[in-house]
C-alpha cells in the first residue's frame, strides 16, 4: 500500500467512526430490539427474573396447567422446621432460635405477616424490622412472590416444593414465571395487523408528499423571484424566509400556536369579518394538515431557497443577456434557462427532504402532537409515542424498534431508488484532471 493511501485512510477514520457508531450500531441495535418484546414491563438491561405471582397462577391455569399444581404454587407457606431453626441460629444467634423452637415449633403460617406478628412477641428477636423480616424469610417453604434472579435458583426452589412436574410443565412454568424480555417476531405481525399503523402509514404519505411539494415549490418560487430583485432587497427577503429554519423549533411553533389558537391572531383578525373564532390548528383534520404542512414546508422551503439561489447564481449571466437580446421574457428565461440548470439541486433537495421528512416529527410533536384524533400522527411520531412517550406509561421498546426498522428499510430503499433515478454517475462526471 502506498503511503498516500494510508494517509487517505487516516483522513477517513473520523467518518468511519461516525458511520459505525452513530449509524450502523444504532441500526443494528434497533434491529435487535425489534425482535424482542421489550417494554417498561420487562425492562431492557435488568435481564429479567423468575417470579410466581397471582397473575402467573392465573395465566398458568388459562394455559391448561394442572389446577392442583397451580394451587400449590399459589400457597404462601411459612413453616417452623429444623432447617429454618438452624438457619436462624446461624444468622441471628442461638438464643433467638431456641426461643422460636420453644414457642412456635411445628407451626405453619399462611403469609409472612402472621409469622412476623408471632416473632415480634419474642424477647430475643432482632430489634430491626428488616432483620426480623429476614429471619421470617428463613422459614419460607413456598415460592409465591419470591423474585429469583437466575433460572437455576428458580428451578432449585421449584424442585424443593416436590410438585412432581414433568419436563414440559417445568418449561411452561419457567416461561410463564419469567419477567424479562424474550425474542419474538410478534412486533412485525402486530404492525401488519393494527389499524393504527395503517393510519400512521397513510398519514406519513400525506405528510411527506404535501410538505415536499410545498417546500420545493415555494423554495423554487423564492429563489427565482429573489433572483430578479436588486441584491440588497433580495438578501433581506432571503434572510426573512430563512428564519423558520434558524429559529429554535419550540419558539417557531409557539408563534404558530399564537397565530392559530381560537384566541390567537388569526381568529381575532377574522372576527372583524364575522368569522367565528376557532382553533385553526386543531379544528378539523384539514386545518391540522394545512398547519402541519406549512410549519414544516416553510422550514424545508428555506433550505431549498438557499440551494436553488446559489445554483441560479452559477448560471453564466451572458446566457441570460443573450436570451434577452433574442427577445425572451422572464417566464421564458425561467422555463428554458433557469429550470434546466436547477435539475440537479431540485432532485437533490427532493431526495434529501423525502428522507428527512420520513423520520422527522419534531414540529408535529410540538404543534398538533398527532391530533386531532390522531389525524396527523405520522409514522415517526407514532413510533415515538409507542416506544417512549405515552400517558399510560407502558413504553413498548420492542414494538417501537420494529416501527423504526420499517422506516430504516423504507429510507434505504428510497435512497437507492433516488441514486438510480438521478443517475449519480452522470451527474458527477469523471474529473478531467489527471491523477
Amino acid at each position, binding site marked *: 500500500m502506498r503511503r498516500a493511501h494510508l494517509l487517505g485512510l487516516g483522513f477517513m477514520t473520523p467518518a468511519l467512526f461516525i458511520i459505525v457508531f452513530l449509524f450502523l450500531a444504532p441500526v443494528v441495535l434497533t434491529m435487535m430490539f425489534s425482535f424482542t418484546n421489550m*417494554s*417498561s*414491563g*420487562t*425492562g*431492557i*438491561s*435488568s435481564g429479567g*427474573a423468575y417470579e410466581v*405471582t*397471582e*397473575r402467573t397462577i*392465573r*395465566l398458568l391455569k*388459562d394455559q391448561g396447567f394442572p389446577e392442583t399444581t397451580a394451587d400449590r404454587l399459589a400457597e*404462601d407457606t411459612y413453616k417452623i422446621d429444623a432447617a429454618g431453626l438452624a438457619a436462624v441460629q446461624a444468622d441471628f444467634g442461638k438464643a433467638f432460635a431456641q426461643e422460636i423452637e420453644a414457642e412456635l415449633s411445628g407451626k405453619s403460617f399462611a403469609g409472612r*405477616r402472621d409469622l*412476623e*406478628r408471632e416473632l*415480634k412477641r419474642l424477647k430475643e428477636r432482632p430489634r430491626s*424490622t*428488616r432483620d*426480623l*423480616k429476614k429471619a421470617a424469610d428463613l422459614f419460607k417453604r413456598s415460592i*409465591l*412472590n419470591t*423474585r429469583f434472579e437466575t433460572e437455576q435458583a428458580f428451578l432449585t426452589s421449584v424442585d424443593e416444593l416436590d410438585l412432581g412436574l414433568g419436563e414440559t410443565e417445568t418449561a411452561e412454568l419457567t416461561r410463564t414465571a419469567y*419477567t424479562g424480555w424474550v425474542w419474538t417476531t410478534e412486533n412485525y405481525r*402486530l404492525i401488519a*395487523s*393494527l*389499524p*393504527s399503523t395503517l393510519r400512521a402509514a397513510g398519514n406519513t404519505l400525506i405528510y411527506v408528499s404535501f410538505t415536499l411539494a410545498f417546500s420545493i415549490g415555494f423554495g423554487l418560487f423564492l429563489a427565482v423571484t429573489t433572483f430578479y430583485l436588486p441584491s440588497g432587497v433580495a438578501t433581506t427577503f432571503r434572510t426573512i424566509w430563512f428564519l423558520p429554519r434558524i429559529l429554535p423549533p419550540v419558539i417557531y411553533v409557539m408563534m404558530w400556536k399564537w397565530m392559530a389558537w381560537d*384566541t390567537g391572531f388569526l381568529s381575532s383578525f377574522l372576527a372583524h369579518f364575522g368569522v*367565528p373564532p*376557532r*382553533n385553526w390548528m*386543531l*379544528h*378539523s*383534520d384539514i386545518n391540522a394538515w394545512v398547519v402541519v404542512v406549512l410549519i414544516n414546508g416553510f422550514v424545508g422551503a428555506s433550505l431549498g431557497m438557499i440551494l436553488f439561489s446559489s445554483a441560479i447564481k452559477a448560471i453564466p449571466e451572458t446566457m441570460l443577456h443573450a436570451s434577452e437580446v433574442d427577445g425572451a421574457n422572464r417566464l421564458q428565461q425561467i422555463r428554458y434557462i433557469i429550470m434546466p440548470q436547477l435539475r440537479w439541486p431540485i432532485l437533490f433537495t427532493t431526495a434529501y427532504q423525502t428522507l428527512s421528512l420520513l423520520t422527522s416529527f419534531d414540529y408535529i410533536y410540538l404543534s*398538533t*402532537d398527532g*391530533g*386531532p*384524533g*390522531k*389525524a396527523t400522527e405520522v409514522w415517526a411520531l407514532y413510533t415515538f409515542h409507542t416506544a*417512549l*412517550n*405515552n*400517558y*399510560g*406509561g*407502558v*413504553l*413498548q421498546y420492542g414494538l417501537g424498534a420494529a416501527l423504526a426498522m420499517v422506516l430504516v428499510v423504507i429510507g434505504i430503499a428510497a435512497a437507492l431508488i433516488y441514486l438510480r433515478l438521478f443517475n449519480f454517475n452522470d451527474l458527477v462526471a469523471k474529473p478531467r484532471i489527471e491523477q
Partner: protein
Amino acid sequence: MSILVSKLRQSTAAAVLALTTAAFAGDALAKDLTITVWAGGSNDSDVYRLDAIEMAADILSREYAIRGEELNISVEKKRDFAGWDEFRQAVTLAAEAGSAPNIVVTSHLDIAPWSQSGLIVPVEDYVDMDTWPINNIYENLLDITTYNGVVYGLPQDAESRPFFFWRDTMKKIGYTDEEIDALPAKVEAGEYTLQNVLEDAKKAVDMEIVEEGYGFYPRVSNGPDYAQFYQSFGGELMDKETGKLVLDKQAMTDFYQFFVDAVEAKVTRKNHIGTEWDQWYAEVASGKAALWHGGTWHYARYTGKEGLDDFFGNIQFTLIPAGNENGQANTITHPLAYLLTKQDNEDDIEIAAQLIKIASEPRINTLHAIKSAHLGIAREQSNIELYANDRWAAEATRRLLPYANSQPNNPNYGKFSEIMFKGLETAWTGTKSPADAVAEVEAEMTAVLGDDLIVR
C-alpha cells in the same frame, strides 16, 4: 532494651489499632445519604408530596441520633415534569440507566408494570405494616397499592373525580336553588343522567348564557376521568373473576356517542382535546362553562390561583351521572402512591422506606391533603383540626368516596386506556363514527392485549 523496644512496638500497634477502629467506627456511625424523590403530575399546591419526605428525613435523623447513630439525609426533590408522559418516560429511562430516584410519587397504575420489571420493590419488605401510621391507613387504599397480594407502595393521597355545575348558569336555565341542592341525590339515584347533562348544556348554549362549546367542558387530555364515562354506560374495566380487562362494546359505543352528541349539539368543542390546562382552569373557575367534570383537588386551584372566593356558593358537585339504564352514577379514585425503587444498596432502600412511612403520618399527610384539596389517607386525620375543619374535605369525602372505585392494577391497563382514549378522540373529532371507532378499538385491543382481554 529489647523489652523496651517490644513494649514500644506493642503500644504503637495498640495505638494504631485503636485509631483505626475509631476511624472506622466514626465512619460507620456518620452516614451521609442523598435521597432523591420525584413526583409526577404535581402542581405548586402539591409541594407536600416532596416536602413531606424532607420533614420525615428530619424526624428519622433525630430517631437515629437518639439511638447513637448519625444519619445525614439530604433530600433532592423534583416535580417539574411537563406531564405524566414525560414523568413516566423519565423514571423508566433513569431506572434503565441505573440512576432511578429512590422514591417516586406516582399513580398506583404504575405498580403493575414496574413491579414486573423489577423497577420497584415492595414496601412491605422493609417496614412493619402493623405499626403506626400504616395501621391507620384506610384498607381500601392499601388494597389499591397492592398488586398480586403484595403491598408495593403507601398511598400518598386519595381523591375522586366529581361532576361540576355552575350554579348561576343552572339558575338561569330554570333550576331553583332547592333543585340544585337536590342534584347530588338525584344523580346518585340515577334520576339525573348524562342525557340531562346534554339537555341542560344545550339550554345554556341556546339561551346564550355560555358560548358555543362551553355547555359541557370536559377534561382536555387522557386521564382516569374518561373511564368514568365508560362506567356510566355500564362498562366494566376489569373482570373480577379472572383479573382480565374488559371491552364492553355496547358501553364503549354509547360512551363515544355521548361525546359525539355533545359536539353535534354544539355544547362541547370538536377540538376540545388539547386545550391548554391553564386556559381550562381559568374558564371553569370563572363560570365560562356551564357543566364540567374534574377532580377533588381542583378545589385548591379554583379557590387559590384562579381566585374563586365562594366555591360552594358558585359550584355544585356530584358523582358522574349514569349514562343510561345499563350503568350507574360513579366516580373513580386514583390515589397516588409512594413507591420505592430498586437500588444496589439495600440500606438506602430501607431508609427510603422509613421515610415514606413517616411521611404518611396523619399530621404530615394532612398538610398535603388540605393544601392541595386531596382527601386524607388515614382515619386519624378526621381528628386533626386542620383536616376536620375543612369543609371541602368533609363534604367531598362524604358525598364521593363511598361510591369511588379505582382502575385495575394490570400491567396491560396502560395500553388499554391509551387505546380507549385514542378511540374516543377519533370519534369525538369526527374522524370516525362511534361504531367504527369501537371496531378499531376492538381490533387494536385484541391484537395488543391478546389473552388479557375479554370482549363483550
